[in-house]
């Protein structure tokens, strides 16, 4: 009997982040300084896109 596939029934992964991999691929430093955009009093990086 074919086993019922259970993926995605209960959980949807919005982002499969594997930050450790970026230790190899990242670090070019071309991204925007986080405080230069629209805040100047806080710091957030999660809203930035990688420039690569």
């Amino acid at each position: 009997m074919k086993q019922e596939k259970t993926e995605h029934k209960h959980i949807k992964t919005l982002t499969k982040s594997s930050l450790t991999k970026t230790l190899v691929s990242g670090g070019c430093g071309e991204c925007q300084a986080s405080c230069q955009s629209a805040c100047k009093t806080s710091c957030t990086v999660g809203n930035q896109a990688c420039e690569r």
Partner: protein
Amino acid sequence: MLDKECVHCFSHNHQYFVVDGNSGSVHLLDELAYQMIKAIKDGLEFDETAVINHLSNEYSPRKIKEAFEEITVLVKENLLFSPDFTEIPKEIDSVVKALCLNVAHDCNLRCKYCFAQTGDFGGKRELMSYAVAKKAVDFLINASKNRHQLELDFFGGEPLLNFEVVKKTVLYGEEQAKKHNKNIRFTITTNGIGLTKAIQDFLNEKMYNVVLSIDGRREVNDAVRQTINGEGSVHDVIVPKYQEFVKARKGKQYYVRGTFTKNNLDFCEDVLYLAGLGFDQISMEPVVADSALDYALTEAELPTIFHEYHRLADELLEYYQTKKSFNFFHFNVELKKGPCLYKRIAGCGAGHEYIAVTPTGELYPCHQFIGDEKYKIGDVSQGIIRPELGERLKHAHVLNKPTCRKCWAKYYCSGGCHFNNLKYGGSLSDPYLLACEMERKRLECSLYIYSSLNN
């Protein structure tokens, strides 16, 4: 061994989320899987029989097994209850790539909450000369080594008080960038009072981003953002200028940016007011101030602020459905092409990637530190003469801050503002917890909005 500390479960409007802080992964769940993860985080054994026993009053064993299986897959793939680093990744070399040029330590407004002591940063009221600005550009080009993408922000005080220097510096910067194969993104923050058609045309042509200060409704704005003699409505002067400016900007990046205080805890109304005026790029920051001040935000206001952020998130989604949508800066989250771990650790880069320049050419780790001699790190002629200060800031990253290291939001917020941590958190290693609370709430709202718009 599951790392449960950095896993965060939250729900809003029947949407259920789990953020795995160590990997940065975000999951959207049904209520069963959510309850299961929450119970495991709260101490239930990670075991199929244990979860069946725990949830069998509400769900069938088949469903529970299904959900448990999915959770097990995520755990195996290190996307849930994932381990923290056993060794902290090595800090990589960084170079200066962004300058905040305080071209004017003076202002034509006297805003009550100004962190720059109404523009003079506790010192003399003065303007930057073109000679100093030129040296700052040279410093940036030299210090940036092989970085191509650079930033130069005109700040103050009010930078338009020194517009001729802004203009000449942009032209010089463009010339030097071309010569050295760099790209400089110019940005400016203004209170709008001095905006003219000629200035508007220049800024719209040359500035990559323009930040236009306004706090929202007339009575809210004018209660804190006031003229030098306290007369007239600042709101009434700047709104038509901003509307014309944005119209002429033709889609280029800008933000209308406000500050909310204890006196307008219904700041959602101010954001919606700005949206109603036709602005579609809006930022509204919580004021950072000593808790003794009457407008300061304290822990007591957090429930109201949280409620307001949720209300804003729901209103924003409503706008997407029915009216012209707008973008709220603090609800932006990049889940697909987000920054690398180095960036998430480096955060703002103050003192080593990002430097502020005073009108006389002194260098400070960022605009917030200006005026405190202890933090002077060099000058535009000699460059950085105290690199150890920048190194200290660089080292004060989320993985070296015990409180941050345990936080599920660490790789999204990056540890907050060094200056605020020092002033209100107590040390570089202790985050300013009030800001942390608001940051986490905004991140929840961001994920809720993201999920609502993408599912």
